[in-house]
């Protein structure tokens, strides 16, 4: 038999508010984990830009400089911009990762507290976000230590 319960309206309203907060933190954690991933992929992005440019030079046997005399300055500009972006993301990586972990844990706690509705999708999503953030943190930490 399911127990009959009396929940005061004020308590129920507060529970609804906590669930709303859980959803807000869940939404925040998704954006924050994307910023964490940007930290890793922007670093790879700079490397990819350099590889592509070197590849173009090799393929054209250097004639790219005759076809486009500004190629080298264009190449250095792109590397400078991508390097700046990757530096920004890497400098702030620990802030993003910390916020991602905090918001995903908070959302997990608040959503699990809801005994009326099961937020399976959001709970799974927050768990995945938490796992990804932790993996990113380990990757960066190992990279810095290495």
């Amino acid at each position, binding site marked *: 038999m399911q127990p*009959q*319960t*009396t929940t005061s*309206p*004020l308590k129920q*309203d507060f529970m609804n508010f906590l669930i*709303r*907060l859980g959803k807000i933190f869940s*939404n925040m954690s998704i954006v924050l984990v994307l910023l964490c991933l940007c930290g890793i992929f922007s670093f790879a992005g700079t490397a990819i830009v350099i590889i592509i440019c070197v590849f173009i030079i090799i393929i054209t046997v250097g004639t790219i400089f005759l076809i486009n005399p500004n190629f080298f300055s264009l190449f250095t500009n792109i590397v400078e911009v991508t390097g700046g972006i990757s530096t920004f993301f890497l400098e702030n990586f620990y802030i993003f990762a910390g916020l991602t972990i905090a918001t995903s844990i908070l959302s997990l706690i608040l959503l699990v507290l809801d005994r*009326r509705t099961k937020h399976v999708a959001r709970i799974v999503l927050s768990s995945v976000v938490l796992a990804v953030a932790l993996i990113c943190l380990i990757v960066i930490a190992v990279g810095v230590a290495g």
Partner: protein
Amino acid sequence: MKTLKLKLIGINSKIIPNILIDGKMVKCKKNEFGSYETTVETEKDVVEFAITRDLELKSKLWWLYAFLSFIVSVFGIFEPFYDRKCITIDCLFKLKLNELNEVNVKFHPFANEGKAVELETPNEYEEIKNGYLLDKTAKKRWIALLIIKIIVWIGLGILAGFLISKLI
């Protein structure tokens, strides 16, 4: 002791209603077919069976919760929307009980008005209230919140523009 087996069919997963037996809230469990079930035991011969629905914007402290949510969600960027339709369920039945009672409650699709549920049971019952209702107070609050948010967003946009122009 009389046993009442309740089965709720056709509930939208986003709209979980409150089930009250003699004013006490009853917890329902979702079964493998997506319906909700519960079993209640009582000594009474007649029970009052009510179905209601909570609206966040109907709570006493709705303005405080809305304000806090707005701030925490970075001025509403990460905030999930409040229920735009603001439809409540207002159902009340008096149900005569036998020793073992099975009641299937079939929910009609959500609408601004009309019958909310259909009871399928061999038991005798009296329908006192049964309908979907548009909650005008909640709707007004929803519109007020939307207007306030738009004004704040425009204000923030102007402030951001001013600060950027100062920096550049």
